[in-house]
């Protein structure tokens, strides 16, 4: 007890001197732990885009952006600590980058009035902004992904999946279980049979799961994995000679790290995508010029143009655009989290805006409203070319099946609202 009091006195002095910053964008990153291979490029992309804005444009509307990194190691306890440590510095938006941490932060963000952006992860029903007032999951969520995957299989089968077998191989946790209700509903609608196979954390051992897949011979395998689980699954699929073009991962299972270890046998593996791939965009020239060559890149600076780096960059781009809108709407450059929230709720991403930022055709166009915090849910399919060692989009961005998803979202968000006494409605 005495020791604790001593450290308290010391640390009280530390906490008394916060960095008075400009526009604060906390990054709850994970550069350590079992998912670091995915966390590092995302965090680099997120930080580099803001560095670019600071170096090239002198910040956003004249205010410098300040990215505070806090290491979570994908651990929910550290996520809480990071949130509490940074929330006193007027953060504009949080990107938890972990479904577990998202679930913890959704109620806290509501209580503190700080927006949460969970891009392509987190709680799907947060799309219903009438209940989840401070949580945004544009442009896509997991249920969009599940629907888009099924849509792609439909298009390969002339619009009918009657009698087909689809297996969902998923991480046995919140993240992996999210798509199950959607896929169940879709299987009833389209008449395919669904089988789910869980892989326990961290997923380095999947022999029995793939033995089961080999026995059941599904027509398609959908895959919800993250971290080391991805490479193992791709390798195991190659080992049982499962046709790679029938094996499709969610966007978190579709980076270079996941397919390179399997070499040529990973050729043809598909993954869903909600933003474009590759480094063939004007913004990357600026990043090389102002950030990497100037020695200001986050991390080692070797991730530019990888799938997850692009995703971090895209998250930063969306946050920066919302901040610009907030400045325009409020008339002050030093905006608050409340301004940011309102701007995120009115965010309208058009092709012209993406092109102006040096990201032409980088992601889908979408519009956020109070009723819809998730956009249209446009998803494309990417395929891996092992000889060229590159991903390429093989379809256009196409919307998910809203007729199936919307009732599910309504039901889940209504359950949350009832559990927590939230009154539905827009401001």
């Amino acid at each position: 007890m005495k020791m604790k009091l001593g450290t308290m006195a010391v640390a009280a002095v530390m906490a008394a001197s916060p960095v008075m910053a400009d526009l604060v964008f906390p990054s709850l990153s994970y550069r350590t732990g079992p998912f670091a291979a995915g966390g590092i490029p995302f965090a680099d992309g997120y930080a580099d885009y803001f560095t670019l804005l600071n170096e090239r444009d002198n910040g956003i509307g004249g205010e410098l952006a300040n990215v505070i990194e806090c290491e979570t190691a994908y651990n929910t306890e550290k996520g809480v600590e990071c949130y509490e440590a940074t929330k006193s510095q007027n953060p504009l938006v949080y990107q938890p980058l972990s479904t577990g941490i998202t679930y913890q932060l959704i109620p806290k963000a509501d209580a503190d009035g700080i927006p949460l952006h969970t891009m392509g992860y987190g709680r799907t029903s947060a799309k219903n902004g009438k209940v989840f007032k401070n949580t945004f999951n544009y442009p896509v969520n997991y249920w969009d992904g599940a629907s888009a995957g099924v849509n792609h299989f439909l298009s390969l089968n002339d619009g009918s999946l009657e009698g087909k077998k689809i297996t969902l191989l998923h991480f046995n946790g919140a993240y992996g279980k999210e798509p199950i209700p959607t896929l169940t509903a879709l299987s009833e609608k389209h008449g395919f049979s669904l089988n789910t196979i869980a892989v326990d954390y961290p997923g380095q051992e999947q022999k029995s799961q793939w033995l089961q897949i080999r026995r059941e011979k599904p027509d398609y395998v959908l895959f919800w994995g993250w971290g080391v689980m991805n490479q193992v699954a791709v390798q195991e699929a190659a080992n049982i000679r499962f046709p790679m073009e029938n094996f499709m991962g969610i966007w978190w299972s579709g980076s270079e790290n996941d397919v390179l270890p399997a070499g040529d046998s990973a050729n043809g593996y598909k993954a869903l995508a909600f933003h474009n791939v590759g480094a063939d965009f004007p913004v990357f020239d600026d990043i090389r010029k102002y950030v990497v060559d100037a020695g200001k890149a986050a991390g080692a600076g070797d991730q530019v143009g990888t799938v997850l780096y692009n995703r971090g960059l895209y998250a930063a781009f969306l946050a920066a655009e919302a901040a610009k809108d907030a400045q325009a709407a409020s008339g002050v450059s030093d905006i608050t989290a409340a301004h940011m929230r309102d701007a995120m709720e009115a965010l309208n991403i058009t092709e012209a805006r993406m092109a102006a930022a040096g990201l032409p055709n980088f992601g889908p166009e979408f519009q956020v409203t109070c009723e819809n915090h998730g956009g249209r849910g446009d998803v494309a399919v990417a395929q891996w070319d092992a000889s060229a060692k590159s991903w390429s989009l093989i379809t256009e961005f196409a919307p998910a099946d809203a007729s199936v998803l919307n009732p599910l979202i309504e039901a889940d968000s209504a359950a949350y609202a009832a559990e927590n006494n939230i009154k539905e409605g827009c401001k």
Partner: protein
Amino acid sequence: MFYREAGDFSTSYPEDSQTFPIRFDRYRYYLVLFVAIFVIPFTINDYWVNSIFLPFLIYAIAAIGLNILVGYCGQVSLGTGGFMAVGAYACYKLMTSFPEVSMLIHVLIAGLITAGVGVLFGLPSLRIKGFYLAVATLAAQFFLVWLFNRVPWFYNYSASGQISAPERTVFGIEITGPNTEAWATYLFCLAFVIFSAVIARNLTRGAFGRKWMAIRDMDIAAEIIGVNPLMAKLSAFAVSSFFIGISGALFFAVYLGAAEAGDAFSIQKSFIVLFMVIIGGLGSIFGSFAGAAFLVVLPVALKLVGVDWIGWPTDIVAHLNLVVVGALIIIFLIMEPHGLAQLWRVTKEKLRLWPFPH
């Protein structure tokens, strides 16, 4: 000079058998309680509560629980994470089924349910010992986490398998959910810590504790002098699981707010609580507090110094943290195998003779 029995006369049996017979020790204990109850709640904010005090208090309860089993009764257990999960899920089911009941009652019942589960998994301890028992409790850890992941009833059929604590109150003050006050959650957990520590301390000083220690020191000899091993071992499992269940319930409902069995209550939890008990000192209530403080405060302190003061990259500090904590564990095990509690005992002996050590 300090900690002397001289001049401290007991005139009645209760005085003679009180928890802290030495006057200085007793006053120090009162002072700590006074500061914890009347000073800290008025000075803390969200950050201090959520990153230091809540984890410290909650882990202290878990460490007290495990210390009873491992330190006092000598039954090695690696199932702490699983038992914490039982407490958490029991609390969640109670909170959602009986929303109008006070959290105090929910947490206590969650502890009792965990005690029942603990007794069930303690049954093998009657036949197997040592490493073999450790493996049997490890099975409990994996089985319980699997169960909570597998059976949707436990997480109320939510889409993702996450459990989230809704807003619940004690005497009209919010204890769980996002709108809690820092002092309320702190005092709520502190009340359970004091409750657990007082019960544990008195149990271990009484007939139960003596039976546990007899079993720990030599079970055959204990049986010969009349200790019933069935009762002693199972009661140790029950009491230990009761405290661990309380800590699991608080960990989920008050501290995290949302949890998932495979993530929040993994095997890592079992190990970290075991480390707390070993570093703090086996068979010591104070050791449970010291171990919990050590493993909770040290990473946060290292982070504050490394990232906020020196400005190193976060990943370097995170890796350094692992190195420093690991090295300190090894150093402690070599230099002071009886843990921080032994250091404290040695300090007391020194203080007793000070300033004339001869």
